[in-house]
């Protein structure tokens, strides 16, 4: 719960968090080391200095850290734990659904666990989706289109094998498809983070919600265009939001574009924990105003009402969370301090 300086309680649903193991013991090769090193550079680059973590903690943090940083020290009421496997890089996977579910089952009213699959696995991917639904009753999945799989270095949402998976998701009621579309890293000139495949998939699967993490940056214009055309495409603020500290004016330009094009009902807060912690992000977002010249250029404002939508109400709608009921449920529970 975030309490505003005026004493108003704001429901916070953190749309993008992780419980990973990037420790040297789990790294399968140099790629595993370089992957977590790259995350750590994101962390140290955009975090306020007093929020920096030691490298060893960043590589592998505990359940207690996760719970504390999100719900005790942090303002989150709920968090979505996304799964990212990277089995080519990590012996036991980077952040599997089993690992996420192991912590979520201890705090069922706090966490939503999303699965993941790789359409390139063909029939096995379909079986895996069934298994995740039956075992964990997932409501969403996280797609990482630049994941390596043997000789393949990426895939597209509109690949025929991916369509078979999305048909199954639709049938099973797995309605929220989170897609990582972020800074150009792994892809070759067949850019795995190009956003145009979202357009096709979102058109062909109207029942599914497509949440584009990182808003496709640095392809914000393409993303905005698609999200404006397609009513079922949303933008996740992870990576964009931390700029609020280091380059607030730049963040203002991004949020102004998003508000202008896709509007306040389709933008979702996400800390990308443990790359960043939600406390400072939420505090800074609540205190933030778009500078007058940018606001008037685009004719938009970041009002308290809009901030409340971004911080939790929009994601709650996608996951059918009854905010009032959940708030009451959480208020009745003591804050649990995870025993280690």
């Amino acid at each position, binding site marked *: 719960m975030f309490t505003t300086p005026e004493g108003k309680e704001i429901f916070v649903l953190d749309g993008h968090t992780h419980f990973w193991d990037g420790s040297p013991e789990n790294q399968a090769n140099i*790629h595993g080391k*370089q*992957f977590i*090193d*790259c995350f*750590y*550079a*994101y962390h*140290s*680059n*955009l975090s306020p200095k007093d929020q*920096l*973590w*030691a*490298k*060893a*903690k960043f590589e592998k943090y505990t359940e207690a850290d996760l719970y504390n940083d999100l719900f005790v020290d942090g303002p989150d009421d709920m968090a979505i734990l996304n799964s990212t496997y990277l089995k080519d890089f990590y012996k036991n996977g980077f952040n599997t659904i089993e690992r996420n579910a192991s912590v979520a089952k201890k705090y069922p009213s706090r966490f939503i666990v999303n699965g993941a699959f790789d359409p390139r696995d063909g029939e096995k991917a379909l079986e895996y989706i069934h298994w995740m639904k039956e075992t964990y009753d997932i409501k969403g999945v996280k797609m990482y289109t630049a994941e390596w799989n043997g*000789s393949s*270095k990426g895939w597209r949402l509109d690949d025929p094998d991916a369509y078979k998976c999305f048909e199954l998701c639709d049938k099973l009621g797995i309605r929220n498809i989170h897609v990582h579309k972020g*800074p*150009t*890293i*792994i*892809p*070759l*000139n*067949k*850019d795995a983070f190009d956003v145009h495949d979202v357009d096709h998939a979102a058109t062909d699967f109207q029942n599914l919600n497509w949440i584009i993490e990182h808003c496709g*940056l*640095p*392809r*914000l*214009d393409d993303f*905005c265009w698609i999200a404006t055309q397609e009513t079922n495409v949303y933008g996740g603020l992870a990576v964009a939001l931390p*700029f609020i500290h*280091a*380059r607030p004016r*730049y963040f203002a*330009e*991004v949020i102004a*574009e998003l508000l202008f094009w896709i509007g306040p009902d389709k933008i979702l807060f996400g800390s990308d924990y443990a790359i960043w912690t939600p406390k400072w992000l939420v505090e800074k977002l609540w205190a933030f105003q778009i500078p007058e010249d940018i606001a008037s250029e685009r004719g938009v404002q970041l009002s308290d009402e809009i901030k409340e939508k971004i911080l939790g109400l929009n994601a709650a709608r996608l996951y059918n969370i009854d905010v009032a009921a959940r708030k009451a449920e959480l208020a009745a529970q003591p804050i649990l301090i995870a025993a280690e």
Partner: protein
Amino acid sequence: MNAAITIPLPDTAARLDQVWAALDLVTDPELDEPITDMGFVEQVAVDGEGGVNVAFRLPTYWCSPNFAFLMAQDIKSNIDALPWVTRSDVQLLDHMSAEEMNAVVNAGGFFSDVFNELTKGEDLKALREKFDVKAFQRRQEVVIKALQAQGLGVADIVALPLAVLKATNLGEAERAKVRYLELAHTKGILGDLALTTYQRAPLTVAGFSEYMSLLRSVRINMEFSGSLCRGLKNNRYLELDASGVLASVPPALTTSTQAEHCG
């Protein structure tokens, strides 16, 4: 490449200066920033026979290989264009595709030689063109905003003669203006008018606001990449240990440049 015997070899300091000047002209295509400004160049060495070795490092191990390849190729061709250079070697360090890429770039090969399976034989011409368009648009936005700050209205801006822009000092935006004009000249874009689209269409008063909106979105994307890359580069080897000490721990340079002596 010229035979070394016919070209007198400038002294070591002059050769190093010339190499650095050649490197200043290489830009990161995604950011339109010189690689020397970005701090990508790690080491430059010259030897007594007209040989040059350059080592460079990008902000992450995962930086897109096609962008990396374009930079490596540009480094090599700019160095090879110096009249006294008899041999050049470019090494990209700590990158997932470094080994294959370095071998192909130094042999004068193509991107598709490294990544044939993934590129289906396409080369990077189309990508270069795409980045030229973005660089042109980004530099042009700086110029237009500077002109607006000097009090020019839309009607004046769309009709501004090239000769007038050349003669106008834009203050802080002067460097962007020079780079805008250079690129426009190289691409043969501008005629009498100072400001047209990349496709050489004149700007119009009616379409001005929409055009500026396009330039803004190009800038927002490029600024994101530029700011992120700069930050990641500065933080790449920085680690905080458990006792709270922040230190940089880059791996040692292990390329052939280490064994080279200057001059």
